[in-house]
């Protein structure tokens, strides 16, 4: 059963689209991590990596998929929070803090510098 708290060893996956607008020198811009509604991610929830990637690919068109550890998110000062949806129980968001949603430019840059590219189409 999926725990409501996101644990430190969990990976958080982010789908990035459209590719042509966010990519720079083989890496996404920090602009891809700025969202006024909270940065939408999928928790791994103990699923195999390929299952998560295939699921994200089925929900988005041409995309890149990046991942970051929940622990890393906390270390750089962001606040990952579980936000399950009816259609996706693994949905989560990365916020600026417990009370603020949108990341500062500095936090978005740190997050961008921390992600690993899992898939790129």
């Amino acid at each position, binding site marked *: 059963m999926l725990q409501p708290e996101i644990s430190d060893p969990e990976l958080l996956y982010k*789908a990035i*689209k*459209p590719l*042509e*607008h*966010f990519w*720079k020198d083989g890496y996404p*811009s*920090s*602009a*891809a991590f*700025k*969202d*006024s*509604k909270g940065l*939408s991610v999928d928790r791994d929830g103990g699923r195999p990596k390929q299952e998560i990637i295939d699921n994200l690919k089925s*929900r*988005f*068109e041409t*995309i890149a998929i990046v991942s970051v550890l929940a622990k890393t998110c906390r270390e750089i000062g962001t606040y990952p929070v579980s936000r399950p949806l009816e259609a996706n129980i693994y949905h989560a968001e990365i916020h600026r803090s417990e009370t603020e949603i*949108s990341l*500062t*430019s*500095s936090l978005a*840059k740190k997050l961008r510098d921390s992600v690993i590219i899992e898939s790129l189409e």
Partner: protein
Amino acid sequence: MCEVLELENISTKSPVIESKYFIPNAPLHSFAGKAILYLAHNISTQLPYAGLKNLAKLESFRHFQVNWDGNGALPFMEAQIEKAKLILFNLPKQPEIFPTARQSVQFEYEKENGDYLEFEIFEDSISCLQIVSGRETEHQIDESEIFSVVNNFYASARNLRS
């Protein structure tokens, strides 16, 4: 008659620029007029192609529909794109340009040594993030200050080399 560049034909993969002829007394508030001013202002100091490519990219943001990022992002407003374009015309060096899902346009400069300068242009404000030699500052900035901030960012590197 003078020559202007057809922005729609600029692609990052095939830098083919088609030229057309244009009547010079076209209003300068038109997009073509601004492009001419931009070229006249910058042709001797930097790469006009980078500027035109950026203009074309900004123009492409106009076509974003609701949910353009797959996560419900809203389209850009006309005034935001125009504001970003006017700032772009006055920059001493061309940045990388990106959209965000919080209705802002991001201008980025990054040096090989990791020094980083970013402007995030909102409808009613501009934020500036600067990381130089590991020292980070983030603050609101006035539109009139951007030119000198970019100049100083690159001047610091020139001073270090000399």
